[in-house]
């Protein structure tokens, strides 16, 4: 369900080049009224990079060194009415200097709406489940769980549209979202003139000062690739605990998610559960199990895939992390695979917001 990126490629390369080069040259002249080249109101810019090395016992195409992704983030207040955000991803080809460029997200949010109301317009990650709203460098494990990849696609799916949200004044946190998009994502018939529509609700409860429990439900429907509609349903749970009395105290995050994709084909469903634990100031560990069904083909004895991963991460600062993973995969139509992956993740530029 990942959106197509190739059409953006040349346009974005040229655009980024045009923006970046003159800005570098005039840095020393910032504030000049005569030249009009002040950079004081430039957006906050950051660049995240992901490099990995993988080895498996199945001689997979994914083995070897890989420049996974470079993602540029730009955030700024446009004027008194809008705030803008863009995430442009560069995915280098294997072993090559060329890169596929795509606009992962690029949207404005409206400022000054009545209290509790939000409005977002542009291209955004579809709020189907929890994992689909994450950028690659925010994934808890190096790659998306197979359950997410099988139902929604390996990369977070985005589309162009309009999203309205509401935060009612209640004793607990409840966020309601409803949206329409142009149904251009891979899972939909992009030639159709119909739109896709969906919704998500999230409830969060504080369990004392150190823990929270969160439950979410998602729905998305649009014109299917074949006849009929395609429908996606998701349910997710999250429990977080943190020792708040220490700067980098112990912390535990448990996330589980169930996803269902329905169309005129047999249903595809999947679920995963992730447990992350901060064991020390700079050390995290985690385990994940993922299960999913696939559309069975004639002659196949089963239609299930399984995956399990363990992770150890060294996080020396908010700007870099080194993660090592061991994975066991039981895929459909292939041999079982054991793999080991090492990933370097770093960010330069503007301070990234802490994730919750």
């Amino acid at each position, binding site marked *: 369900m990942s959106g197509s990126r190739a059409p953006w490629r040349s346009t974005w390369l040229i655009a980024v080049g045009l923006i970046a080069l003159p800005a570098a040259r005039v840095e020393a002249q910032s504030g000049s009224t005569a030249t009009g080249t002040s950079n004081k109101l430039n957006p906050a810019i950051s660049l995240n990079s992901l490099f990995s090395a993988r080895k498996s016992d199945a001689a997979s195409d994914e083995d070897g060194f890989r420049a996974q992704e470079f993602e540029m983030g730009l955030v700024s207040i446009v004027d008194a009415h809008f705030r803008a955000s863009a995430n442009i991803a560069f995915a280098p080809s294997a072993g090559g200097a060329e890169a596929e460029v795509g606009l992962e997200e690029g949207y404005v949010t409206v400022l000054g709406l009545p209290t509790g109301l939000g409005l977002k317009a542009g291209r955004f990650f579809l709020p189907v489940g929890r994992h689909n709203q994450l950028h690659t460098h925010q994934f808890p494990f190096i790659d998306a769980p197979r359950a997410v990849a099988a139902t929604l696609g390996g990369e977070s799916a985005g589309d162009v549209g309009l999203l309205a949200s509401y935060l009612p004044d209640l004793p607990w946190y409840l966020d309601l979202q409803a949206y329409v998009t142009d149904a251009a994502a891979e899972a939909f018939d992009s030639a159709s003139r119909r739109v896709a529509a969906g919704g998500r609700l999230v409830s969060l409860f504080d369990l004392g000062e150190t823990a929270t429990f969160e439950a979410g439900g998602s729905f998305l429907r649009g014109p299917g690739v074949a006849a*009929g509609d395609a429908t996606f349903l998701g349910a997710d749970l999250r429990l977080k605990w943190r020792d708040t009395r220490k700067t980098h105290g112990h912390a535990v995050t448990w996330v589980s998610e169930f996803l269902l994709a329905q169309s005129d084909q047999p249903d595809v469903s999947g679920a995963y559960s992730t447990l992350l634990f901060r064991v020390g100031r*700079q050390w995290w560990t985690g385990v994940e199990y993922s299960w999913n069904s696939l559309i069975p083909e004639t002659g196949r004895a089963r239609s299930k895939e399984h995956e399990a991963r363990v992770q150890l991460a060294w996080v020396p600062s908010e700007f870099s992390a080194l993660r090592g993973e061991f994975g066991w995969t039981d895929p459909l139509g292939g041999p079982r695979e054991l793999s080991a992956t090492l990933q370097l993740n770093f960010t330069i530029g503007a301070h990234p917001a802490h994730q919750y």
Partner: protein
Amino acid sequence: MTAVQSTRAFVRLLLFPLVGAALMQPVSAGAAESIVTTLPSLASIAREIGGDRIEVIALCRGYEDPHYIQPKPSYAKSLRKAVLLVYGGLELEVGWLPPLLETARNPKIAPGAPGLLEASTAVQRVLEIPSGELSRAQGDIHPFGNPHFMLDPHNALAVTDLIAQRLGELDPAGREAYLDGAASYRQRLEAKIAECEARAEPLRGKSIVAYHKQWEYLADWLGVDVVGYIEAKPGIPPAPRHVASIIELIRGHHVEIVVAATFMDTAAAEKVAQSGGARLVVLPAEVGGIEGTDNYIDFLDAVVRRLVGQ
């Protein structure tokens, strides 16, 4: 279950909390305005100024490191109701305040709105504004200067005036009450400052070592010299070689006090202090950081008492 059945089931699921939300909309009390601050010290001052006219909530607890607060969505619930958000600034809350503000969807405290107030704008002398080359190789640096300015009570006096002025602008009917509240509070705070300065006089000119770079305003106020840090770079765990050099420094300079905040690695600080022959003083970095510091004046009193060993 077919797609149509799934859709109906989801719509029913969505309607349940919506109806619940509509039924549970709280009836407005119609009295106190809701004020949110990031730091408990700012909340304490706002309470003194506003009295019963306002309800004040601080997002950060006094025992938490304000750099690393988790932006819990439930905080957005408090921000949603706020008519004024007072934050420290100088990028202290840069990691967690922006996503909360976006989630809160409250135009009264949106960027550019009068309900968004940066307390650091009241500070006349921001310390440690970096000059020269600046990079994150230097650790967790603050490009706009040291943001822990509330550890100098003279800055708290300036912040008192700033908050009172803004409250008066947002609520003109209560302007006189806010100015009176601020004047009364200033009087009590000035008295406590004089008392603390007299008590801390024996510390003047003495050298201390700190775990983390956050006590500069306190040291500047009391005339104490911070000669070294257990962290070689802010936010980076110290290497054994650096720890050994700090222990030597403590011995060489006859440093008597090693200071660490409650949320830092106090066990490591204790070892350093013991090895160097100094006394470890664990200090609350904010109001509420230890018992008996529920307001800014009590906090100030506790910090100075602990420093002088009372």
